[in-house]
């Protein structure tokens, strides 16, 4: 195999595909990219057995000889990135070596047999639909931060994607807080199909999406989700498990609701968090008429107090929260104000951005 191209043509493809490759692999070949050169262009594939990303580039590539090779991913990406801008590059496989040439630079990399490179099987999908990239991006961004990390309840280490004829919805929870975002554009014929996309699949999918109306094509299979956009095809295994019944933990709207300026609250929570206990991150909120007091302290007995004017007409109460959970929500909301609805100090609180009805957040209070 042999082709020539310029650095910029393949730069983002090499980088995105290498992003999927884990730093430590169970099989040596998983540290490599599969490079396939056919008459029309080049395909690069990276995989960690859970997520596979294929980048296909046809424009700006001159094929001299078709063929296949696997090349060490990170080394290739590092070389590619550090070549001069617009450099012409030739890539060639010879025996068990891959040669990269550019100007007066030459690199000889060790390859591994193509036959050892594992491919994710491409079973036919049950549901296919397209969605604007910016819509899918919002579904992921508004909820992804609430996914669990390496939780024993493995089904929480991912994002629920629910597709029905009325909506496309994402839900994420780590067991203490939950985020839900709903796009009111359904998929005809879909009967509330639920799949759990693993954390890594969510992160890599997010990297592929641009802020535009261009569509991304999604295929849902029994065990896989496939997303195609531009020249990229991402295939991720799905988490085999039952996601908790999220609708049961979303509290009904309460009369005890406060509305405050989002930016002002965000800043106040940030400052208070500096003196909260680094491990537990607890803050105490005292709700009174027209104002909220945020208090934090740490084991060194240092204390922070912030008073913020809000609209609140409910009964006075005190409630504790992990401040990080509140900050995460205030960061992803893009509304002017924020609405925090609380029933009592032991029940989950509901957070929404008035005017952005697609997203709902639930946070369990902390007993301080």
């Amino acid at each position, binding site marked *: 195999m042999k082709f020539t191209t310029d650095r910029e043509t393949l730069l983002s493809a090499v980088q995105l595909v290498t992003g999927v490759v884990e730093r430590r692999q169970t099989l040596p070949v998983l540290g490599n990219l599969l490079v396939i050169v056919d008459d029309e262009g080049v395909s690069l594939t990276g995989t960690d057995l859970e997520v596979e990303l294929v980048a296909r580039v046809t424009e700006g590539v001159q094929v001299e000889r078709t063929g296949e090779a696997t090349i060490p991913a990170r080394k290739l990406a590092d070389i590619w990135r550090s070549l001069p801008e617009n450099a012409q590059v030739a890539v060639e496989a010879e025996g068990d070596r891959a040669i990269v040439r550019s100007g007066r630079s030459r690199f000889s990399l060790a390859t591994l047999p193509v036959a050892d490179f594992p491919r994710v099987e491409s079973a036919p999908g049950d549901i296919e639909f397209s969605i604007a990239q910016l819509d899918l991006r919002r579904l992921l961004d508004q909820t992804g931060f609430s996914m*669990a*990390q*390496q*939780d*024993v*309840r493995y089904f929480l280490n991912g994002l629920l994607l629910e597709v029905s004829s009325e909506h496309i919805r994402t839900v994420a*929870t*780590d*067991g*203490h*807080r*939950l985020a839900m975002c709903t796009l009111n554009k359904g998929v005809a014929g879909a009967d509330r199909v639920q799949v759990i996309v693993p954390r890594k699949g969510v992160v890599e999918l997010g990297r592929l999406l641009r802020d535009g109306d261009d569509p991304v094509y999604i295929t849902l299979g029994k065990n896989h989700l496939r997303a195609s956009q531009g020249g990229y095809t991402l295939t991720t295994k799905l988490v085999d498990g039952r996601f*908790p019944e999220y609708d049961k*933990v979303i509290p009904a709207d309460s009369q005890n609701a406060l509305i405050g300026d989002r930016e002002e609250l965000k800043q106040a929570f940030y400052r208070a968090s500096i003196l909260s*206990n680094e*491990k*537990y991150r*607890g803050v105490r909120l005292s709700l009174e008429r027209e104002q909220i007091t945020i208090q934090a302290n740490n*084991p*060194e*007995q240092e204390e922070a107090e912030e008073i913020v004017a809000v609209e609140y007409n409910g009964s006075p109460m005190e409630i*504790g929260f*992990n401040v990080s959970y509140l900050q995460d929500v205030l960061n992803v909301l893009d509304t002017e104000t924020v609405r925090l609805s609380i029933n009592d100090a*032991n029940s*989950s609180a509901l957070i929404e951005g008035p005017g952005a009805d697609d997203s709902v957040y*639930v946070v*369990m*209070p*902390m*007993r*301080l």
Partner: protein
Amino acid sequence: MHDVWPRIIAHADMDAFYAAVEQMDDPGLRGRPILVGPRSQRGVVLTASYEARPFGVGSAMPMSEARRRCPEALIVPPRFARYQELSEIIMAVFADFSPDVQALSLDEAFLDMSGASHLFGPPSSMGRRIKDAVYAATGGLHVSVGLSGTKYVAKVASAHAKPDGLVVVAPRDACAWLAPMSISRLWGAGPKTQQRLSGLGLETIGDVAAADRTWLHRELGQVGLHFHDLAHARDPRPVSGHRSAKSIGSERTLSADVAGRKDIEMHLRRSADRVARRLRRKHYQAQGVRIKLKTSRFKSLTRQRRLSEPSDVADTLYHATHPLLDELLPFGPFRLVGLAAFDLSRREGPEQPELFDDERRSRDLEKAIDGLLERFGDDTVFRAADLVRDRTLGRQGPSLDFLDDSN
């Protein structure tokens, strides 16, 4: 008024340990001056009982000199195996009070009691409870306990009211409390250093505290700064245990080897129940889980993982073992199955309740069962699966529960 201490450190030191053990085990020795040590003239006294001490006898004194000063003292040869045995009991008592125990010798340890007020009350009652627990567990040995905000002050405090002492020095009073004491109480000041300090006109710890820091540095070098810090009760060193409980485990050698996932899981489940119960009893939580399987060829295999949050729930520990078992299953059959919880911390701080009920329900159920087992005995409640296991696999070997404090 009890103010909140940033750190609470206890120093516990057995009173005349070897001599007290001998007097406890042999009523004939009680109330009499005894010297524990070799009978030979060339040996040194290991411990003198409190009855012998008024004669000016102490540890490390040549036996010949001690006998000259206190002719009526009985000489008792040491029984190290017995001291070791009691030491293990004492250290186990300490481990019930804190996951962070630093043993300094057989009979002396630091305990980090920070954050344990809700379990044991204010520092004075912590000290009282440690003393009572040691007395009860050993069958009659006294320990002196000092509590303060630093290791140094705690150690000085435990020595201050021996024997059977309990001294609590609030961190903000520590500097004033130390001030009148002799410089011989400075940690690391031997006879030679004491002479040098005296030569500089420093007789008490208060003198050292009042001295100019740069002057001390010039006169004594680095150690001068160290003494200045101690005199101001500044001692940030943490309690770093070689002997603290690093893990709590339960393993079992089986009467017949197991290879099937279901059979192994039954044993892991049972180990998880035992381990979680012991965690809860000690008010610990674990953030790591390890499984150990020994193959029929006696090769021990372990796999471990961290939990996203500390837990003392058997169900959580058990489910965490599933991916670990996946990795080891191909190496079976196995003759031993065990599970250990490590990375232990105290259950403390604010509680973050769960959005979904599962973990809370499991914990509530397990705690209810704890109560039943405590009231009615160990075999009153067990999992239905254990009934099946006992039928299919016959009688099991004894189970080994361990508190690993080896490293």
